[in-house]
């Protein structure tokens, strides 16, 4: 990591449009669990998501470092920023397009979380290598949480 001074694994969560309610809650949870398991976490998101996170978590217990989504991708493209693990949330074609962009620029682990009403339909449009979590979650985050817990196997 260019921005880190120690050897902690670094994860970046890429969050798109916040119109599907489950994204905010599950990303707060995931950020918390990643940090609790010893990773550094950066949230790359559009301005609406950053505002939601700042209101929901004013003291930044769950989400600390936040950066504009397009700026983060620009920094990665210019090799000013890197991450060990990219986790992308997508519920529409734009989300898949952002994921394909990150896949091209980021050679490391990439976890793609497909959610929302059309989660299953989106699977066929993913033609790049990644780990995929698919859950038709809109309001209820429990199914998505279970799948994330299985993938990350949080330490007790």
């Amino acid at each position, binding site marked *: 990591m260019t921005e880190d001074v120690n050897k902690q694994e670094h994860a970046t969560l890429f969050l798109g449009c916040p119109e599907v309610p489950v994204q905010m809650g599950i990303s707060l949870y995931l950020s918390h669990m990643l940090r609790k398991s010893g990773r550094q976490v950066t949230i790359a998101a559009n301005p609406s998501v950053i505002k939601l996170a700042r209101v929901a978590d004013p003291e930044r217990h769950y989400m600390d470092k936040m950066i504009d989504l397009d700026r983060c991708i620009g920094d990665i493209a210019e090799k000013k920023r890197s991450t060990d693990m990219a986790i992308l949330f997508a519920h529409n074609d734009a989300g898949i*397009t952002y994921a394909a962009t990150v896949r091209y620029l980021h050679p490391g682990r990439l976890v793609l979380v497909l959610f929302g009403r059309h989660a299953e339909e989106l699977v066929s449009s993913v033609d790049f290598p990644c780990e995929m979590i698919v859950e038709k979650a809109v309001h209820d985050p429990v199914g998505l949480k279970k799948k994330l817990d299985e993938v990350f196997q949080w330490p007790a």
Partner: protein
Amino acid sequence: MACVEDLNKEIVLSGASFKEAREYVEAHCTEIYYVNPGFRLFEKHMIGIPPIAIGLEGDMILFPFTKPCYGTFLIRAEHAEEAARLRSLGLKTTKDKK
């Protein structure tokens, strides 16, 4: 150099899928260049599923612009300087792709 937001532009497609935007460029332009995600166009790093098709019609540039909440727009903007830059970079063309 102009920024995308400041361009005098026409929106050719809105709320499209990225694939639809690429297919439109390929169907309507004779001069096409293919770039990869992160390529800088109008001071922005492009978001897209590679290869990203950019069409040129004289000084007109036809390119996709993706926003998380609104999907992909296909934008047509006139900009002689950026069109000349694209032609000078030795980018992949339609012929190269095929």
